[in-house]
């Protein structure tokens, strides 16, 4: 159970959707393709499933080439043995839960006794054994999601594809299913590709993340690697860095950098710097900053709180500096007593400030 993709390209009319993507996914791993809508992540996955015909590239599943434009190899969708959980779940409303899950096995012409055991086993695993004879049009979103998962798993696919399967669910259900999905994936050692635009989902589910934009892979790595050191400010923006300030000019210092913003403010930080002369931005995660009430003689990042939004576990503050920049800060000290209008100082460790290339 492994997937190899090399040089995958696909355009729709004149618009390039995938501009040369390589994937090497070993057995039992979960790869998340992360990116904004239109970045080519879904098209990449649909090419692997066989639902789209790539313009170029080679795709092999389990060492078997299923697509090779140059060699005219095109294995049709129904013979690729991939499982897929669709965004709409695609549960057939005219069939019962059991019939839905049994469908792939019927297509494989599995004898009915064997089929029944395997279907019930799988329904057991996703907690829907009692629903076997229910009409599937009466299921809730979360239940449909699990039927879709069972239907894909029951065929023992070489690879399981997930097309934003949680995006149509409400937030709490999504949190719960995300954990269940990760559990199941680890237990069954599923080799899977998961497409999403939600960074939390990506971080929680992936063994490896590929961030895509404009049809290309911009960065790939483990969730922790990506979170700790995004390659560009655009990727940082996608991973929750909400304070991004383009630098007018910047210079490397010993073990760090100083950068001047458009407002004239000079920020300094530590860590690696982009290649000399590259356009760059200072990126800071709101949870890496802290606030305290300012005293009259404080200097530095002194400003006024314009918004305080209490989220339960933390509070999100927006602070406006006299030069006009707006900073976002997350504080876990919910009893700090800071309110809208308070004059505060933003405190940051040097390591919190990262200078990242904009491209």
């Amino acid at each position, binding site marked *: 159970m492994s997937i190899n993709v090399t040089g995958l390209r696909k355009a729709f009319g004149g618009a390039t959707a995938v501009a040369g993507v390589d994937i090497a996914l070993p057995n039992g791993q979960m790869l998340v393709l992360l990116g904004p809508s239109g970045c080519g992540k879904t098209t990449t996955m649909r090419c692997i499933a066989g639902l789209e015909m790539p313009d170029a590239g080679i795709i092999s599943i389990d060492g078997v080439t299923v697509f090779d434009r140059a060699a005219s190899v095109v294995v049709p969708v129904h013979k690729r043995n991939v499982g*897929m959980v*669709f965004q709409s779940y695609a549960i057939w409303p005219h069939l019962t839960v059991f019939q839905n899950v049994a469908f792939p096995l019927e297509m494989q012409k599995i004898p009915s006794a064997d089929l029944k055991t395997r279907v019930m086993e799988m329904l057991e695993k996703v907690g829907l054994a009692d629903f076997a004879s229910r009409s599937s049009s009466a299921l809730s979103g979360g239940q449909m999601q699990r039927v*879709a998962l069972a239907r894909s798993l029951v065929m023992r696919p070489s690879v399981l594809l997930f097309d934003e399967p949680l995006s149509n669910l409400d937030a709490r259900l999504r949190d719960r299913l995300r954990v269940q999905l990760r559990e199941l994936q680890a237990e069954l050692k599923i080799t899977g590709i998961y497409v999403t635009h939600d960074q939390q989902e990506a971080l929680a589910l992936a063994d490896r993340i590929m961030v895509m934009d404009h049809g290309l892979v911009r960065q790939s790595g483990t969730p922790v690697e990506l979170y700790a050191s995004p390659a560009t400010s655009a990727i940082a923006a996608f991973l929750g860095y909400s304070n991004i300030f383009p630098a007018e000019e910047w210079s490397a210092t010993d073990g760090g950098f100083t950068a001047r913003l458009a407002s004239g403010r000079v920020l300094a930080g530590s860590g690696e710097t982009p290649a000399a002369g590259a356009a760059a931005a200072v990126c800071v995660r709101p949870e890496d900053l802290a606030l305290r009430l300012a005293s009259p003689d404080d200097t530095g990042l002194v400003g006024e709180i314009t918004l305080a939004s209490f989220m339960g576990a933390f509070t999100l503050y927006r602070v406006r500096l006299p030069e006009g920049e707006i900073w976002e800060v997350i504080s876990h000290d919910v009893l700090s007593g800071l309110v809208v209008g308070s004059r505060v100082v933003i405190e940051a460790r040097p390591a919190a400030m990262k200078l990242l290339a904009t491209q």
Partner: protein
Amino acid sequence: MMLRPARLAVMALLLGVCAVLVLSPLLMTVMASFSTTVPFSGGDAPRFTFGNYTALFTPDLAAATWNTLVVSVLGTIIAVTIGAILAWLAARTDIPCKPLVHLVGLMPLFVSLVVASVTWSVLGSGRSGYLNIILRSLDIPLQLEVRSLAGITLVHGLYYVPYAYIMLFGALSLVHPELEQAASVHGARMSKVLLRITFPLVRPALLGASLLTFVAMAEEFPVPAILGGPVGIETLSTRIFNLMTRVPGEPNQAAAVGILLTAIVSVLVWLQRRLLKGRDFRTVTGKGMRPQLLPLGSFRWLALGFVLLYAFIALGLPIMALVIGALRQGMFIRDAAALFDPAFFSLNALRSVVTDPHVQQAVVNTLLTGTAAAVIGTTLYFIIAYVIARTDLPGRQILEYMAMVPLALPALVMGIGVLWTWLAIPLPIYGTLLVLIIAYTGRLMPQGVRAISASIAQIHDDLEHAAQVSGATRPRAIRRITLPLMRGAVVSSAFLTLILATRELTSSLLLYTTNTRVLSVVIYEAYEQGLWSFVASISLIYTVLLLVLTLIGRRWMRTAF
């Protein structure tokens, strides 16, 4: 909020109008079927009797029932099969020239069945049938005879395609492409996907379309009258007409057959509505839905060929026959070469038809009655639909049922009922164009009210409430907000009413008088007298007229389909 007396007055007025338009024709026919005389005819005192029904049990009626069944069942199979294939090609595949496919699926709706039947009888009947002449010239030992059960079935099957097409196109467009893709991914080949997923998903629409088509064919009059009449093949509807018009007439027996037909149709309509209710497999959320068309590969051109073949048989051949019939002089045609020989062509027939004052009168009558039915009808349909959907007036339910009554009323029964109603009511309406307008308005009520209701349902009533909260009165809110939002649906309903009224024959045939002939009636009469070049000329004009109306209306009607 209106005051109570005003509310009651509005409702009473609407119920009264519907009662006269649709309920009275039904009641008149029921009464006549249990009576010895025509209701309120002023002749002998009516006596109650079951005699009209007992008199029905004759071999003739059994044969008519059997014929009706045969042509309707087989016709439905043909029409729904063609319609389903066209709908699938247009909705789900990458067939080339898609707008053309769509047009072909809808176009037969706007062909007059009178013209179609007349033309087919000239194309494929007897030694002088155009197709038979061509077949002989090609030395093919095969001769067609469309004046037969098979012919009636064929014409039914060809021209009732749009009903199935419209319903299935709608249903198939709504099937989420991921449902099919999921089947492919999970191991099903193309044919399995179609058989196990796609068509089962639209089964309610398929069944609904079949029943609707069957009902329409079972009550169909012009086709069996024109193709079956000359060779003595009767269906239930032609039997009613024959009982009405022969001398001496048997109007009470005709009424009894009419009620029998009404009963059959009612059961089927009820069944159809029941089937469609709550069996809606739509799974479209609008979210993440992208049109995914099935690549047909090398079958693309074969599929287009099928569409063009159908278009050629249903539309191309008849139009060719009309052109030849209108231009060609002399009835005797030796062979295929002579059929197309321009030496025999002249514009005389066409010229004399265009200058014929009777024909001119009929054109004016057709356009007048059609336009009036469209304007009056659509206004009425809008008011009824609005009252049903958006008010809490008492009696809304009754109004809704009344508006749907014509679904179960065969056109012939409608015609007879309207005739007797306006002979009984002492107003000078019978014998004028008004009685035709009344018949069309009543007959087309279910289709109009439904179309407008559907579009009202799509407009959230908060939009109108917001206007009222902002200070508009209810009528003003309707005029400024609801009506403009529904403009497309209202205009399209008016156009459809205009076209369907313009191609109506059945009830017109029972209601016309010397000065109120419409085109379909003129064609039918001329065909009975065997005036082919006259019939062809006038049919050509009629067809062009319908075509022009359709093309003008198409822009708006697209939204309705």
